[in-house]
């Protein structure tokens, strides 16, 4: 019998370990340190309030900004691998906030796990003590809210529900596609941000363009093309009755804000609303 | 028999009755040449091939052994060729240990409609075995005296 008890005890402690495992490696990325400080600051404040500790990876480097799709691009993926390996060293899940960083880190991680060509060459370059093979789990802040903390817990923690605010979620491309790798939500009918909006007490507004591209990548190259995309998205959200649009992506934020011509809607980072609802927005 | 005098390999081919045996017949009716060193033994299914038969052949002086079965998913008995594939994979991993070159055994999927493939496979296999040379590892050298 004693053996049985020991086993049960062991499992309980292990289980408790999992429940309390609320420490994450955190990768902010360049933009969150400069133009998107609010995204970062409110994200950290809210996480702390919800009991999740975000430990910023030391000496982090650029994620690469854009995922190189070419099969033979290795060097441009290396800095992302360093970040992933840093999280592996701490045995923590890696949380990201910026959609672009998340996209790059998740896809490079997938390459390191499943693409032998990339894995071998990247490890040959990096010469790590132990080769990195995609061990780190990369999750977006929203996934942390949904899958680790839980929207119910979040709802219970809300002190300042945003009642009556009609919010349109803007997903963009980078969080959802390609769904095979990102595995974030149904790429054509996502619900995670709408569920988040409900959790903070506001009303989600569903509109057709929420998962269509805003043209952020082309904003520098061809402003006119980006403006066209932004107008399509904003008018779709506005016609559906939204007061406000939220996003997780600094590039989308910039684009929806700076390149709107016909329709204009206020654009905010989702973390700002989160901090507001949790009553931590004014803390600093 | 002198060993050095114009040596040609001796090859045993185990063919599934439902696919490759018929494929071999088709190669015949199409008059597609392949070397006479290949001798076919008919078995009801590739899964009837006991790996021991392969070892027996090597022991008795065969230079190459090939198993031909139905393409995956096409087995007449639905799953036989999968068993055969697994068993042969196991055998392959043992051959090195036994001192037989890996190239002396092969598994190929040849359907009843693939006469040309059968002939091409046999030509290729005979070439491989000819390049490898005589199999001396497992035969009972006393027999050669």
């Amino acid at each position: 019998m004693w053996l049985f008890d020991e086993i049960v005890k062991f499992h309980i402690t292990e289980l408790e370990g999992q429940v309390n495992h609320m420490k994450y490696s955190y990768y902010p990325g360049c933009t969150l340190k400069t133009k998107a400080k609010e995204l970062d600051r409110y994200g950290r404040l809210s996480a702390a309030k919800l009991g999740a500790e975000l430990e910023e990876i030391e000496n982090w480097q650029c994620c690469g900004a854009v995922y190189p799709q070419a099969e033979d691009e290795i060097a441009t993926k290396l800095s992302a691998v360093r970040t992933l390996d840093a999280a592996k060293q701490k045995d923590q899940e890696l949380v990201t906030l910026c959609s672009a960083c998340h996209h790059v880190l998740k896809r490079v991680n997938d390459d390191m796990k499943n693409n032998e060509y990339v894995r071998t060459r990247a490890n040959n370059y990096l010469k790590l003590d132990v080769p990195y093979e995609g061990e780190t789990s990369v999750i977006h802040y929203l996934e942390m809210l949904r899958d680790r903390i839980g929207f119910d817990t979040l709802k219970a923690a809300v002190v300042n529900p945003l009642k009556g605010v009609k919010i349109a979620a803007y997903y963009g491309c980078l969080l959802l596609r390609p769904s095979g790798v990102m595995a974030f939500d149904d790429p054509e009918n996502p619900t995670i941000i709408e569920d988040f909006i409900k959790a903070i007490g506001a009303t989600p507004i569903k509109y057709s363009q929420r998962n269509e591209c805003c043209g952020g990548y082309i904003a520098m190259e061809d402003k006119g093309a980006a403006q066209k995309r932004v107008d399509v998205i904003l008018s779709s959200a506005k016609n559906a009755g939204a007061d406000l649009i939220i996003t997780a992506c600094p590039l989308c934020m910039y684009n929806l804000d700076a390149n709107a011509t016909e329709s204009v809607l206020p654009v905010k980072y989702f973390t700002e609303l989160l901090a507001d609802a949790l009553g931590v927005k004014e803390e600093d | 028999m002198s060993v050095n005098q114009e040596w040609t390999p001796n090859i045993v081919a185990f063919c599934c009755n439902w696919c490759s045996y018929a494929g071999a017949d088709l190669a015949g009716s199409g008059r597609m040449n392949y070397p006479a060193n290949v001798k076919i033994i008919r078995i009801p299914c590739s899964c009837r091939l006991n790996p021991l038969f392969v070892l027996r052949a090597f022991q008795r002086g065969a230079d190459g052994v090939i198993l031909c079965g139905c393409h995956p998913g096409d087995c007449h008995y639905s799953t036989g060729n999968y068993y055969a594939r697994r068993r042969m994979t196991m055998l392959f991993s043992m051959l090195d240990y036994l001192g037989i070159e890996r190239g002396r055994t092969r598994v190929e999927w040849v359907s009843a409609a693939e006469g040309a493939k059968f002939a091409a496979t046999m030509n290729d296999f005979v070439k491989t075995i000819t390049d490898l040379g005589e199999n001396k590892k497992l035969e009972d050298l006393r027999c050669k005296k």
Partner: protein
Amino acid sequence: MSLTNTVTAEDLIRISGVDPSKCMQCGKCSGACPSYDEMEYHPHQFVAMVRKGQIEKLMASDAIYQCLSCFACLERCPRNVEPAKLIEAVRVAVIRQQGMNHMTANDIPEKLDEKLPQQAIVSAMRKYSK
């Protein structure tokens, strides 16, 4: 640029990892493309033209800079052809050639505005130059 004719369909297939022969020319990629009207050649044409070896036209076209890399074509393709990867491969094949950078550091100051996030500059440099 004369160098362009040294790029073959095989090069693009290798760089992209895309197998254009899987395409059934249904046009769903182009039906999904948000940048369709800006592009001289459309996603399904990239696949068809690489298959036929008409590489020079693609490399000379501005369409390679009009792709938004939004992956809508790739996500919705019923045959997992991944046109976005092929378009990027053509772009990469162009900018890897000497003197073919589509954007240089010198171009950046005039495009800057005070709100533009760093990430936009880095990604533009990554996408348009080598």
